[in-house]
């Protein structure tokens, strides 16, 4: 379980997070949603240690992550998998090298064991046989899937996804969502997804945290989200013409 408690974060004069607290359960997909500039990605980066919060705590299964030094964080970081918005694959490495990179750094596995693991991860994301391609040879959706394969290489306990559907067509988005759902169930990971995508909200959101202007404005499940009377949340969720039609049918 991951717990964030009273997180504050500012960049200069701009106060981005204003006392966010939440709990994220294992085996469930937790979505952080909100408009642009609401602090979603900043919260995610505070949770994984890319930003240091000005105050507040991030606790991984009882261990206060925010107090640890870089070296002390390494055991927890080995249990973290992250899918970045632009996949963040290493350009100079092939798909296979990207996937086995953390194994090479932190394990003493033999070459054949590492390749077997890479093949398993690639099969898991339906990209078997793409081992020798470079990131520049992949489509956006394939990059995301390689990103997921890289994230699950070390069998993570915690999986973070920063806008996994951005720039993808609706069908590929659904495939990515299903993949995240399957992996969460298979590995019992605590999965946290930052997204704008309403299909994801309705499809995979076991727990949803809505941020508005740096504050927690609402939390609940995807079954509850359509029936709230919070104006900001309704404005956000039902902004598109399609969602307005959906709302009328509810």
């Amino acid at each position, binding site marked *: 379980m991951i717990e964030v408690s009273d997180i504050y974060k500012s960049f200069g004069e701009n106060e981005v997070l204003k006392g966010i607290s939440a709990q994220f359960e294992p085996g469930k997909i937790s979505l952080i949603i909100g408009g642009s500039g609401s602090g979603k990605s900043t919260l995610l*980066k505070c949770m*994984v*240690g*890319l930003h240091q919060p000005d105050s507040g705590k991030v606790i991984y299964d009882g261990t206060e992550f925010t107090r640890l030094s*870089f070296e002390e*964080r*390494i055991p927890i*970081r*080995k249990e*973290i998998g*992250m899918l*970045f*918005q*632009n996949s*963040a*694959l*290493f*350009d100079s490495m092939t798909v296979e090298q990207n996937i086995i*990179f*953390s194994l*090479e*750094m*932190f394990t003493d596995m033999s070459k054949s064991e590492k390749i077997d693991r890479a093949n398993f991860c690639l099969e898991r994301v339906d990209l078997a046989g793409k081992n020798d391609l470079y990131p520049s040879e992949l489509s956006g959706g394939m990059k995301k899937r390689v990103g997921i394969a890289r994230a699950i290489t070390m069998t993570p306990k915690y999986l973070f996804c920063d806008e996994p559907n951005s720039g993808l067509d609706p069908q590929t988005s659904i495939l990515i969502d299903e993949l995240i759902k399957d992996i969460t169930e298979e590995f019992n990971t605590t999965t946290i997804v930052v997204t704008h995508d309403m299909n994801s909200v309705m499809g995979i959101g076991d727990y949803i945290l809505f941020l508005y202007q740096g504050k927690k404005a609402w939390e609940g499940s995807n079954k509850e989200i359509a029936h709230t009377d919070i104006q900001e949340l309704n404005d956000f969720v039902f902004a598109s013409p399609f969602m307005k039609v959906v709302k009328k049918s509810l």
Partner: protein
Amino acid sequence: MFFTDFGKYLLLIKAVFKKPEKWRIYWKEIFLSMDNIGVGSLSLVAIISTFIGAVMTMQIAFQLVSDLIPSSIIGQINRDSSILELSPTITALVLAGKVGSSISSQIGSMRVSEQIDALEIMGINAPGYLILPKVIAGITMVPLLVIISIFLAIFGGLAGGALSGAVTPADYIMGITGDFNGYTVSVAMVKAFVFGFVITSISAYQGFYVRGGSLEVGQASTKSVVISCITILACDYIITALML
């Protein structure tokens, strides 16, 4: 501003020299960087050094128009100038442009595309993994390039002198072999070592802390070349003042 940047630079250098996670991976990166910095810059350094040696010889000959001065002195001046100043400094300035901008833009692109964030989340010491191999390659390959540059500048002087008729090969060879002080080579090697560190660490620093997009990566690359060149010239003065 200067002190903030300098403090950040020192903290980055401290992180660079932390114990590597796995030396085997680092060695691979070190050899790749050596190939990039050393072999990749060899032809450029060779062309520049040869021509500078040739031009130096002709200019020294032009200025020493006196029957009282033996023409062998042309070779001697060219040799000492090449060893002490021209080869280390010109090679370093050329490498600051070629290698420095490449390092800065490579690391900067990794920063803006979140590849450095990905390394950090994996628990890898990103400054160590990305910068240490380049610094080691810099402090080993720049001295080697400077040695090659010295030989080619002296050879260029021989060829330039002979072709232009400024000095005969016999006089030139007499000049470069007479009164040789080995200490000058030590000074050149100290300069090359320091310049190698300056070029790689400053450009890596500029790339590592880029914020924004491709425009900022380009700006960081330009800035790394400018700061490296100024630092090289300042270090050149300090080392010369201390050692000579």
